[in-house]
């Protein structure tokens, strides 16, 4: 497997880096937060991303996407990670597009894919019902009702709960609470009667929260994929998101280190540049090594998503587990090495630890993915 970027990927990365640094730097996040933005991203910036084709990165060309694959999506996530740029890219362009293009009916594709690619429609993914990620723990019910289904239940920690126009939701159509069998996926427009959301003031200043389904009546064509057999599709969609989050954390970790090295090169204490203290040097060098390992495993996971998504679970979990730990180490070391100033809200470095915490937790933290890794490995 090649770890080198193709010319096209290299160009995409350069473009993404330039865009994020110029149009959506951390200053934007700060200003959105201070304004109390509902979405935690700037709709104009999102439109510009869409114009560049990002929102269609995984949408087939026949639906006006650019179909560049998960590696390309990962490169964009990585750059967004560096600048902590908020957008519905992960929820909609990565997970939404994966779900609908891979498992949607022709009608669903017609309805959604072009609009996802254009950025006009935003998809949210509603998976968890408890405080910890547990995709097979589904209590939300979808009872047969006439020709369709009646949904009742609640989802937590739904990223883009406020900005989404429709949700992909897992519901139980059969089986017991923690069984994989009996889970079905639905595509539910937010405007549907009985759907409501409750946006939380998240530490990363993005929009996420609870989505409630109260006697939501759906036609049979709201089903995404096979009834009772949604667990496989669900893993595929979630793995797409997890690989993307791992790439984002990789970017955030790299940038944390980069800013810390800059600071170490400048700050004077005890009559010397603090970057000349060997204990800090060794910790920075160790962190660098961890981040390099992180970059490689993320790329491998993204490649697996492109080449053999059904087999990608092991690598995706390895990548998300590794990056969850590495990025948190980076965030913690960054603050410690900045000292007091790193604790102040005025200084940007403190934004990293908050987003990284959320990114680690989303769709399974490093404990969850080390567990999943061990289970797939059979020990």
């Amino acid at each position, binding site marked *: 497997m090649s770890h080198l970027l193709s010319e096209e990927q290299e160009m995409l990365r350069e473009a993404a880096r330039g865009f994020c640094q110029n149009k959506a730097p951390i200053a934007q996040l700060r200003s959105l937060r201070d304004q109390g933005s509902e979405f935690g991203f700037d709709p104009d910036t999102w439109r510009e991303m869409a114009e560049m084709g990002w929102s269609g990165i995984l949408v087939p060309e026949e639906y006006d996407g650019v179909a560049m694959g998960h590696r390309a999506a990962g490169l964009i996530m990585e750059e967004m990670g560096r600048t902590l740029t908020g957008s519905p890219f992960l929820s909609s362009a990565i997970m939404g597009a994966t779900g609908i293009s891979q498992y949607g009916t022709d009608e669903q594709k017609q309805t959604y894919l072009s609009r996802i690619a254009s950025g006009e429609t935003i998809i949210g993914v509603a998976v968890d019902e408890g*405080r910890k990620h547990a995709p097979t723990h589904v209590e939300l019910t979808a009872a047969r009702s006439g020709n369709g289904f009646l949904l009742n239940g609640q989802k937590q920690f739904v990223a883009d709960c406020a900005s989404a126009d429709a949700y992909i939701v897992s519901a139980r159509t059969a089986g017991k609470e923690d069984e994989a069998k009996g889970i079905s996926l639905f595509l539910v427009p937010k405007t549907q009667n009985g759907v409501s959301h409750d946006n939380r003031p998240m530490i990363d200043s993005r929009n996420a929260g609870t989505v409630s389904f109260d006697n939501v009546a759906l036609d049979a064509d709201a089903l995404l994929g096979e009834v009772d057999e949604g667990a496989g599709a669900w893993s595929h969609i979630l793995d797409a998101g997890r690989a993307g989050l791992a790439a984002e954390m990789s970017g955030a970790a790299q940038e944390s280190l980069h800013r810390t090295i800059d600071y170490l090169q400048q700050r004077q204490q005890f*009559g010397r540049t603090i970057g000349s203290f060997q204990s800090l040097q060794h910790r920075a060098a160790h962190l660098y090594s961890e981040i390099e390992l992180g970059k490689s495993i993320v790329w491998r996971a993204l490649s697996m998503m492109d080449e053999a998504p059904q087999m990608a679970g092991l690598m995706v979990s390895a990548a998300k587990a590794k990056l969850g730990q590495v990025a948190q180490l980076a965030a913690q070391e960054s603050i410690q090495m900045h000292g007091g100033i790193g604790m102040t809200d005025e200084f940007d470095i403190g934004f990293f630890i908050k987003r990284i915490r959320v990114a680690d937790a989303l769709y399974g933290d490093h404990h969850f993915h080390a567990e999943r890794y061990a289970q797939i490995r059979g020990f």
Partner: protein
Amino acid sequence: MSEETEDLTHFRATVRDWLEQNCPPEMRQPMRSVEDVCWGGRHWKFASDAQKIWLERMAAKGWTVPEWPQKYGGGGLSRDQARIVRAEMKKIKARPPLQSFGIWMLGPALLKYGNEEQKLEHLPKIARGEIRWAQGYSEPNAGSDLASLMTKCEDRGDHYEVTGQKVWTSYADQADWIFVLVRTDFEAKKHEGISFILVDMDQPGVTTRPIKLISGKSPFCETFFDKARAEKKNLIGEINKGWTIAKYLLTHEREMIGGMGSDVMRPVGDIAVQQIGLGEDKKLADKMLRTDLARMEIDGLAFMETLARVQQEAKAGTGVGANSSMLKYYGTELNKRRLELMMDCAGSEGLSWGAENDLAANWLRTKANSIEGGTSEVQLNIIAKRILQLPST
């Protein structure tokens, strides 16, 4: 306890009775938030009558500072007696009547380094909660390297004039007076031109600005001195010898912060069981987190025992002095680990502001534990040099 003398047993009974009669029931409730802390000071607004009465009664007995001499507003108690007062208060869950940097920091420094006049003037006001003190140590360019501070203090004949900037001055915006480390000699070596002085903040030359932290609002401020006046009599100890007092207070602070690690014993394992639940095997459902929890709790136990041992050794005079650095280092790092695991247990519920007892803000706030009061790196330097006797470069 079995060794307690008859005198102490009798003292204990007296204390118990007195507390029973004098501690208002409202003051026996756990504090619901930082709002319930009584800090005192010129502008203090009591949260309730009970808070006011409780402070007054305790101050009258000198029990806000039980071990200080009575002439300075203290209770004049022996260490054993003071321990009994604290223990009996704990038994009835009595809130501390007064907390302040005056009690924790300035008081001990004055008792050790102040002259009689200074003690008589300042200590009773601290004991009665009349004056609220702030601490002016760190500067933007003097963090870990505190001795490189540049706030200048010039002799103007009948008084001193202070100009410069301090950071991390807790509650400076609510304080009445501030004790400040200043440079009084710019020619001398950096440790030798520092003095320790008390400044009344109620003057135009002193202004403050709150600092917002990554965890949100904070008690910290920046404090600016622009030709602020300080009386000559308020310079503590000898001029240019303030570093000795600073070092004393830093060690004191380190011990306090290290001691706070006692909090590490709140058993995270129980929180985990409640929040995550057990699997069919009766073990925490999250097996990987469980490993980290077990190891952290074990370290927490070992730390608590070490804290107890170091305190006992100190009392017996057999301890390693620099071990306060070890406690500060380990205790704060452990507390950071503990909060990381609590965040892991809380999952998505811990990721929004205000939820789960402000867990997210508390978690972020712990990141400063290993910075304030001397960074972990500084503590490790101290251990390496003073305890392990490893050479400088």
